[in-house]
């Protein structure tokens, strides 16, 4: 699973992307656990960051597969 980081989250992770592996499909909590394992500083952004799965916001009951592209979307500020 490819994970993408944007905005100030990149200052936290010090990378724009990482690869993680899931043997079977995972829910959002499992994805977050894996992220925080690699980058503990992400923990405090859990509450204000949305997950996107293949370029769409993931609903609360979304399942994430190993082939998915998952992006961490901090509060946006375009326009």
């Amino acid at each position, binding site marked *: 699973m490819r994970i*993408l980081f*944007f905005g*100030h989250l990149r200052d936290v992770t010090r990378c724009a992307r990482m690869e993680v592996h899931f043997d079977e499909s995972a829910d959002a909590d499992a994805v977050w656990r894996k992220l925080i394992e690699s980058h503990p500083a992400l923990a405090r952004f859990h509450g204000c960051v949305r997950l*996107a799965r293949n370029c*769409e916001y993931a609903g609360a009951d979304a399942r994430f597969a190993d082939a998915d592209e998952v*992006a961490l979307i901090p509060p*946006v*500020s*375009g*326009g």
Partner: protein
Amino acid sequence: MQIEIEMITQPIQPRRELPAALAGLAGAVAEFTGIVRAEENGRPVAALEYEAYAPMAEREMRRIIEAVGREHPCLAVRVIHRVGVIPVGEAAIYVAAFAPHRAEAFAMLTKFMDRLKQDVPIWKVRAIEQP
């Protein structure tokens, strides 16, 4: 409804001209241009740097336009969002909505901008201060 979305790094050239197929149908064009101001959060700036998750941003913009268009049917909507370093006084976004009457065009423009600022993955990542 015709939807055109562009994300570019060069200065925005607003394009007001009507898609040819709509000649005679459109009675209203509402446009919005968002410009970088000399002050960001109370501090003087010379430029802002914008970043986008481009494929998702385009998809979200299209989704928003389609959703708003179901309530406020328009003939066409054109969006150009610039990313990268944008100097003060230059446009970060340009939106044009074409509709038979002005109410739909205004509603599209205002609702699109409101939702863009909630959901479209584009960020001001850096303020470049005045030298």
